[in-house]
């Protein structure tokens, strides 16, 4: 029981750290400091939920494919503990090198899940590898099936918690991580400012209004 709480604490902190790593999203939305902190906490909770889904998928694969009769609790603890490297997830924020650090940490996290399945259930390495890959596929399938309503709920939650408007959908978050949304927003803002300078257009729009750029 004790290590269950410990694992939960690690997962929560890893989620918050990861959110710091991705905080360009919140900064770009010009959220206030208090809202920023709320956004980080919300991100931590959503991360724990996503780990829970991953753990249940892994448990399903282990149970159905390999016939292991085990309560999901143990798998959940393994998956939560595997997020330990992501305690350094804040490093993702580092300019230029951050995304590489992020990939390395996620890879390490995946290795821990594999090691957990290998040692925890006595599986061979290839079996553990197969389990993690299939579990990942299952999560992807679930996201295809239920992605849209979940995305809407998550975007609504983000907006309510942080007041942010740009890049709150999954697609928007992706565009913010790759910088596409920042670029299009800034270019739009430059056009508005230019119109104001040349005196041939509407006054320069505020950056928050530039969220229109996200719309497909």
């Amino acid at each position, binding site marked *: 029981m004790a290590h269950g709480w410990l694992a939960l604490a690690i997962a929560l902190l890893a989620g918050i750290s990861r959110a710091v790593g991705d*905080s*360009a999203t*919140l*900064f*770009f939305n*010009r*959220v206030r*400091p208090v809202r920023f902190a709320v956004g980080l906490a919300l991100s931590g909770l959503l991360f724990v939920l996503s780990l829970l889904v991953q753990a249940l998928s892994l448990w399903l694969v282990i149970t159905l494919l390999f016939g292991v009769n085990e309560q999901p609790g143990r798998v959940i603890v393994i998956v939560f503990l595997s997020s330990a490297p992501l305690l*350094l997830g*804040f*490093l993702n*924020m*580092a*300019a*230029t*090198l*951050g995304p590489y*650090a992020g990939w390395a940490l996620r890879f390490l996290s995946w290795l821990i899940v594999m090691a957990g399945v290998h040692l925890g259930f006595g599986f061979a390495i290839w079996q553990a590898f197969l389990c993690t890959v299939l579990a990942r596929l299952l999560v992807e399938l679930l996201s295809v099936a239920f992605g849209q309503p979940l995305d809407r709920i998550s975007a609504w939650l983000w907006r309510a918690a942080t007041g942010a408007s740009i890049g709150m959908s999954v697609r928007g978050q992706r565009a*913010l*991580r*790759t*910088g*596409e949304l*920042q*670029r299009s*927003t*800034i*270019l739009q*803002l*430059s*056009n508005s*400012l*230019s119109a*104001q*300078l*040349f005196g041939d257009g509407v006054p*320069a729009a505020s*950056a928050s209004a530039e969220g229109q750029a996200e719309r497909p």
Partner: protein
Amino acid sequence: MPFGIIILVSLILVAIAGVLFLIACMAAALEPLLWWAGWSRRSAVTLLPLDLPADDDPPEPDVDSYLVYLSGAGTMDPAMMEEKERQFIELLRSRLPRSVLITDVFPYSATNNPQLGERRLARLWRYAWQARNTRRRNFFQWLSVHAQQLRNSLQVAVSGDRRYGPILSYGVAQVIVAGLLRHGYRLGSDKPVILAALSGSGQISVGCVPILRRLLRRPIWIASIGGILTDDPGILETEHVYHLSGSLDNTQHMPRFFFPGVWPIFTQSAINRARRQGKITVFDVGPMKHMRQGDYMSRSATLPGGQRYVDKTVDVLTEIVARIELGAPAVMSRPEGAVPDGWVSEPRVGLVLRSLREKAEGV
């Protein structure tokens, strides 16, 4: 001590150094982000003066071009250049009497706040400034000088990062436009605007180009002096990039380590597309280094013909500016030899230019 323990301790130290470096990279990203988010003291995102010159104000100066000089990562304050750089600027100014040379832009800050300006670490940077002017430095002075350069270099990394680059560029581009307006530029002017970018400001200038193009509604040229050019998409919006490359300058090739987009295998990256479109011309200016003795501004080092390095750099820059002013085609006649497509070595430039000038003057 057993060998294994030494290895372990070394690995731990390397890991700690790596994490500390990444934290420094994080801190670098925070400066433009805090400005953008309105959390810093300089919270206004629009930096441009919107009360532009009225029609009865003095007309635009009678010049042929505007050259905005953006210094390298070693700069701390454009108002306090080192002697070598100041002499380079003076030489350039004397060779380009019909160009307005703008030197008061600090490209490593979104708000044009120089390192010696109002900053939390102002005391450290002042200490570094004094240390730079000291011949025999102690350890802390040496450290502060390198920290100063690292701080600016990390802003180059911020500029090259797609997540933060547009924000930094938005600030710097506005500062450049404000500088142009201060020096008499009128919006809508047909005089070419050229960014002369040294070292790290190569990337920063490329990042600014798309914004400058929109703000000024004019094409923008870049003259990069050993500049750092990454795979920033802004390069595709640049009218042309003239890159002065010293054969002993390895720093200009640093992006190969951090920006895979510059590798030739990524054929669709912005810089590789720009190369294919003939938007980049590289001048081999001789055995120049990136910094210190023998660099692009060196007055003591000379080429085999006896020409000082600084004179060579100024010569090539003058030629580039003249080409742009004359509206000459960007890619020049290709000399004999193995020169990659769209890339041209330097010696023929003078000849081509002379003929263009003669043509323009009706000789």
